[in-house]
């Protein structure tokens, strides 16, 4: 055996090794997370121009009471709430149907439904932008034509814009969420349904009293990713509107506005304030969720 130096012996000791193992995370956390979070909170109270940072109190936050930011907040919230409302029940029901013992070729359909998740938001956004194009020959306008409807200017009207954004979201995520529910369903013991059958419970009752409650952990997970994914939505809107400027801000989101103010207009102070608002919303939602899940309950 080679003779090791003091430092090397220190590094290799069983006491020190665990700290060496977690060191990459601690460094990344301090440099690329904790420091940026603190500095964004600090900068949100400052005017940052060139190399100078001057403390200006709450002024940045007062600027945020402008109609565009309020609209961006509303847009992100609306997108989040609706995606949660759609992307939980539909995949759950589809998974239950696909998991039915009468279904043939489960694996095939499961894989096909998963394919949209493999495309990047960028490619998906490009296809959806063009599919919902305003010329009368674009695919969705042709479909409208079949029903005798005039072509729509999909991407300029407040209502139809949301149809496009939700269609994109449903298309990309149904397969993934369905997969979560399928693996949740597989963990439910089969004999539960058998005894329910014997007790004469109908299909709907079985779903209501066995499937639904036992899928709760899956639902909580899907809800969590939908909430934070929805709140931080940016790329979808950027692609659908080909840039960060939607007509009348119909599709501007919190992150979109942060990007516009902070990076495109180079106003780091106000941009940071937007980041802090987003941070507060996220933290509040986390606390609410933990409270609802009973994490704070004592004696468990």
């Amino acid at each position, binding site marked *: 055996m080679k003779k090791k130096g003091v430092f090397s012996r220190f590094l290799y000791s069983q006491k020190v090794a665990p700290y060496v193992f977690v060191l990459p995370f601690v460094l990344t956390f301090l440099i690329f997370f904790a420091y940026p979070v603190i500095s964004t909170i600090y900068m949100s109270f400052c005017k940052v121009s060139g190399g100078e940072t001057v403390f200006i109190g709450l002024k940045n936050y007062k600027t945020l009471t402008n109609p565009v930011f309020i609209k961006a907040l509303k847009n992100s919230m609306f997108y989040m709430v609706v995606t949660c409302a759609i992307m939980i029940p539909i995949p759950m029901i589809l998974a239950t149907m696909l998991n039915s013992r009468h279904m043939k070729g489960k694996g095939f359909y499961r894989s096909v439904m998963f394919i949209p998740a493999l495309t990047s*938001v960028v490619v998906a956004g490009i296809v959806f932008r063009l599919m919902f194009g305003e010329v009368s020959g674009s695919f969705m306008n042709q479909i409208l034509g079949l029903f005798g409807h005039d072509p729509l200017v999909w991407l300029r009207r407040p209502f139809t814009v949301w149809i496009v954004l939700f269609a994109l979201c449903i298309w990309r995520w149904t397969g993934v969420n369905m997969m979560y529910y399928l693996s949740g369903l597989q963990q439910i013991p089969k004999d539960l349904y058998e005894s329910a059958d014997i007790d004469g419970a109908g299909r709907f009752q079985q779903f209501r009293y066995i499937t639904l409650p036992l899928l709760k952990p899956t639902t909580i997970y899907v809800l969590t990713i939908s909430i934070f994914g929805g709140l931080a939505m940016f*790329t979808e809107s950027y692609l659908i509107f080909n840039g960060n400027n939607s007509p009348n801000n119909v599709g501007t989101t919190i992150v979109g506005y942060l990007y516009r103010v902070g990076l495109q207009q180079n106003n780091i102070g106000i941009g940071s304030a937007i980041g802090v608002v987003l941070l507060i919303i996220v933290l509040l939602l986390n606390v609410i969720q933990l409270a609802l899940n009973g994490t704070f309950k004592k004696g468990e």
Partner: protein
Amino acid sequence: MKKKKNTQTILLVIFFSVLALITLLPLLLLFVSSFRPGAELIRYGLNFNIDFANANIDTYRLLFSGQNNYFIWYKNSLVITVVQVFLALLLSAFVGYGFAMYDFKFKNLIFAGVLIVMMIPTEVIILPLYQLIIKLGIMDNMWGIMLPYLVIPMLIFFFRQYLSGIPRDFLDAARVDGCSEYGIFARIMVPLMKPSFAAMGIYQGMQSWNNFLWPMIVIRSQEKITLPVGLQSLLSPYGNNYDILIAGSCFAIVPILILFICFQSYFIEGMTAGGVKG
């Protein structure tokens, strides 16, 4: 009774077949359109009206002609994906192993840090991160894209979970045989973790390959941008942009589809990893 079951099967199969068709429709639309000139797309819109007599592979010829940046972007994305996946897997597995196999002071505190990073969308800190990247002098550089995202909380969480199934006595046996703490990780654990590397490699690979906002912020030069950012820049209908856009989008999906068909179970495991014991 038997008959009733058969109708149920048929109805379910029909239902899911229609659903599968709708699911594939946008991609079919993209694929079919790649055989039409981009100018036609701009004028008439993206649709299935294909004139088979005039269908050709000109757009692909243009794509491969080398007179555009497409394959430069492709290469950039590929390099970043490979390097980031390799380093992220290695570092995150290293950290995850530390959390799974040792008890040490501040362990819970540090692990709380992992959970906090997972909870907060990274978009919250893009501005200070952008300034940090400038200070570090790695703007317009692929390391600027990767450096903040080399130790991934999600991967740490997954690896820790995966390793918690391995009894610690195993380590003592290796120690008795004279293996160092790091030797145990490198020689014994890494081979044991191979299946989880595959799933997590796909998870991280998809993240890196599709990443959009952060690479768009970090990279300024045309010849350094990544594929998603490059494709997006083609959305303006000038010159032959649309030819490259449509054929290029198809060509960006195809390799992933082939990989998916070959390694389906890893893809599904990797991309839905969070839900397993969430």
